[in-house]
């Protein structure tokens, strides 16, 4: 029993230490933002590898998720004779929940794991140390641009996901299943509020982008500099990001949509 408590105490302490390191890391990263503004080229390169390279997976997934929503929604709604509400159902679930959450999960899998592996390998191959010895701060040069790129790309990707999904739902709903096209759009236009739904969805994805990029970069930076250490760090990125995204989504949803 004592042993158990001791272990528990020790592991709690380790996680707090890690959280502390992560926070210090975040502060250093944020402190580097100013230097990025002077050199936007660094950000552009990362926008490319973080944003553009995630573009395809996000749009294709968005299209399919929207089409599935269209199908499933139609079958459920037609039981109640409410097929006309398909538009609002597809749009609300995409804009409020699926857009930000699924995008963030895909982002963690696609870009987050890549970032962790990249940073971890740079650490393992002494590239980060090498930079430090060249009097170049690796956090500013390497981490901050990636962080900013992830943070900026996420809301764009999430908006794309939702938009493509809504169009996918429309393709299935009005093209295949015969829902009235006007009703599809009109229902969502009257029922979705710009501030309550769209902006809140964007806020969600901004927060997810922040957290996912933070986790991915920190896990890479904090990785044990061996192949095994990097592979573990990559796994941790995906797992921790998924947990954080879903947990935060619950909290944010409760805060944003709770009092309606």
């Amino acid at each position: 029993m004592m042993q158990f408590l001791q272990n528990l105490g020790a592991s709690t302490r380790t996680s707090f230490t890690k959280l502390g390191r992560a926070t210090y890391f975040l502060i250093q990263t944020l402190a580097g933002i100013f230097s990025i503004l002077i050199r936007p080229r660094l950000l552009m390169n990362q926008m490319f590898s973080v944003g553009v390279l995630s573009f395809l997976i996000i749009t294709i997934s968005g299209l399919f998720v929207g089409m599935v929503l269209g199908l499933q929604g139609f079958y459920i709604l037609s039981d109640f004779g409410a097929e006309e509400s398909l538009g609002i159902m597809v749009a609300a679930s995409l804009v409020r929940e699926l857009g930000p959450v699924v995008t963030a999960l895909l982002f963690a899998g696609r870009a987050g794991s890549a970032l962790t592996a990249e940073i971890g390998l740079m650490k393992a191959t002494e590239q980060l140390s090498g930079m430090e010895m060249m009097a170049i701060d690796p956090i500013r040069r390497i981490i901050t641009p990636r962080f900013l790129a992830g943070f900026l790309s996420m809301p764009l990707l999430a908006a794309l996901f939702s938009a493509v999904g809504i169009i996918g739902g429309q393709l299935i709903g009005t093209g295949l299943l015969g829902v009235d096209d006007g009703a599809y759009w009109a229902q969502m236009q009257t029922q979705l509020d710009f501030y309550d739904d769209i902006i809140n969805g964007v806020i969600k994805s901004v927060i997810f982008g922040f957290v996912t990029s933070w986790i991915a970069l920190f896990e890479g930076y904090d990785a044990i500099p061996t192949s095994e250490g990097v592979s573990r760090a990559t796994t941790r990125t995906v797992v921790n990001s998924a947990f954080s995204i879903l947990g935060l989504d619950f909290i944010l949803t409760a805060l944003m949509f709770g009092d309606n």
Partner: protein
Amino acid sequence: MQHTATQDTLVGLFVASGIAGLFFLALQVSNLSSFGDKDTYTVTASFESSGGLKVKSAVSAAGVKIGKVTDIRFDPKTYQSVVSMAIESQYNTLPEDTTASIFTAGLLGEQYVNLEPGGSEAVLKNGGKIDLTQSAIILEKVIGQFLFKSAEEKAQGDKKE
């Protein structure tokens, strides 16, 4: 480094399509285009019961949406429900004796306020009050009345025989 130009183009495309997606959501999907921060004026109406009416429910006249409900409160003096509505300024010719009714879209749909213009020369102004109101139809009551009535009729019919 030699890929810079293509890379710039792709990043540009990415950012543009992301922003296009946001615009699409804002304009095509949400109510921003149909009812944003347009100029509105507020009128109130008191109902016996506002039923399932909610803030942001539609206010329409002749089937066209012209505004939305901004506030619903209980008046402790008259025991009525006071509904405030923001109506777009372009529809400023509603007569004073307009009737406000709470209708339901379809059998189980959303409730909304329907305005039926009267014949008065004077028009409603900002802060004006609609006096003629018709409360929400509460389905349970209607069904109750219907059942009661048909039972009564049946009883009468039985007597006649």
